[in-house]
């Protein structure tokens, strides 16, 4: 156990010592500033949130709280930027070491390939969690500058969600949703890590992973394939949005967690098998 802890700590040093690891954090921060400013000064963006709730009898002053805007800015980031950056890091975890030659140095040591992959998976999962928590933390921080504290008003018409929460419950839902967003990030990272176990460049692993996610999103939303939507991984990525429903559908969340666990396990087993049989050469 002590060895595992030391090896995991080393893996985190490697991961967080690299400048490119922080590209995602930087991009998120800039995007969040832009979105916060748009919500603050652009009527179109404000109206997107305010109008539906005004029809329900709420005023703009009530609705435009820091928590509401933080959640609203997370929607596009979680769907577009977050998969991109966890794919980049997941694709790097193994393939970059193979490309640089450091993997050969590691594998001249008495460590099994499955153990090495397990350590990298845990490090990738920690990165994914830190990224999502950083994303959520920054969103709250930035919106606190431009907006006043208050309740949580969530408008996601494409999911049929229009909910209102008092500040206390709003925070609970926000934290719960972030937890499931972390599960999404870990699943995408696992997919990219699996691909990076094959003999391919880090960028290729990241591109293939993000392509798989986008392809799943497209297929899942095709009306002709509505009957098959439960076969696509991205269908289960919507779980975090369920946390913003007035009544949380726990059975759906439980089902999604089981499915994502299954996907992660499958990715790990395929990755471990590919990595195990691979020849590591200079």
């Amino acid at each position, binding site marked *: 156990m002590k060895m595992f802890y030391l090896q995991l700590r080393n893996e985190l040093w490697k991961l967080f010592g690299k400048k490119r690891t922080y590209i995602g954090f930087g991009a998120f921060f800039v995007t969040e500033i832009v979105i916060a400013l748009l919500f603050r000064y652009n009527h179109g963006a404000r109206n997107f949130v305010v109008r539906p709730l005004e029809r329900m009898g709420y005023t703009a002053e009530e609705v435009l709280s820091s928590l509401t805007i933080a959640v609203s800015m997370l929607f596009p980031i979680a769907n577009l930027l977050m998969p991109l950056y966890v794919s980049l890091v997941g694709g790097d975890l193994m393939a970059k070491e193979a490309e640089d030659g450091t993997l050969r140095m*590691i594998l001249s040591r008495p460590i099994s390939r499955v153990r090495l992959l397990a350590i990298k998976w845990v490090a990738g999962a920690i990165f994914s969690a830190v990224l999502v928590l950083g994303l959520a933390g920054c969103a709250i921080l930035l919106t606190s500058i431009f907006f006043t504290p208050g309740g949580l008003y969530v408008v996601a018409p494409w999911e049929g969600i229009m909910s209102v929460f008092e500040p206390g419950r709003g925070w609970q839902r926000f934290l719960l949703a972030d937890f499931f967003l972390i599960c999404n990030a870990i699943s995408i990272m696992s997919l990219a890590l699996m691909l990076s176990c094959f003999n391919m460049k880090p960028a290729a692993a990241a591109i293939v992973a993000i392509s798989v996610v986008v392809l799943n999103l497209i297929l899942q939303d095709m009306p002709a394939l509505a009957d098959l939507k439960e076969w696509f991984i991205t269908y289960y990525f919507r779980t975090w949005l369920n946390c913003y429903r007035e009544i949380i559908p726990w059975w759906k969340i439980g089902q999604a967690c089981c499915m994502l666990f299954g996907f992660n396990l499958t990715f790990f087993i395929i990755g471990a098998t590919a990595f195990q049989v691979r020849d590591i050469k200079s």
Partner: protein
Amino acid sequence: MIQLQNVKKYFGQRLAVNDLSLHVPKGEIFGLLGHNGAGKSTAIGMMLGQVWPSDGEILVCGHEVTRNRQQALQKVGAIFEAPVFYDYLSAWRNLEILSHYTAPTPASRIREIVDWVGLSGREQSKVRTYSHGMRARLALAQALLPQPDLLILDEPNDGLDPEGIHEMRQTILRLHREMGLTILLSSHQLNEVEQLCTRIAVMNQGEKVFEGTIAETRRAQSWFKLRTGDFAASVKILREAGMIIGEREGSLVLLAEGTGSDAVVVKLVGAGHRIFEIGPESQNLESFYLSLVQGRKGAA
């Protein structure tokens, strides 16, 4: 320490290592020679469990590598050509990272090795600021951290300047003398191998073509110095007669198996050539290696 038995490795259809058997005894500095692409690095990769053999058995420190890799590599250190590190981290951090893949390593052990390889004072600097020579020392440090019994060095002089090569040579000799390590040195720098190794194996096109002591290479005398009135014409006659299988430098010929210098004299004199000198060329490892490799090419 290392035992390879009839090892083969295919990459797709290509046979990279063919029926390689090798024995590296404990306490030796063993040289693995061969040109680029001869199969040396693949053989080393198989010894370290990085490349899976297609056939055969590989024992390192008494353990079968493919089945029992962890035990086999417990007391093994390795250095590869152009050593790479996590350049954005300090040398100390790199040593911690790499050593923890073997066992928990106390800071005092890292300090001891850093001092031993002469990196004291620079261990907290980022590796990207290191010269080739310092990287080579760091590579040596990471290989020595697990207190190995066996050191595998794959082209350790690659990219080093003459001073660095000299330093590496002295270090290898010191490791052998002071720590009693068994060392497998893969190289195509024949001069280095000749100065360091007690035994060698020569690989050519994936096959082992020689295994023996350096003294044995000096005794093998197949290259002959031949000075005649017209060397090119003499070579042509001898080739047509199947008496030589190689020539180089405008004065050396490699006699075919079973051909003696007396037969060469008779043939050339009979053809009307004047012979000024014929005699065995004093052998160094380079001429021995060339005779082996060119002899194989000639035979092919």
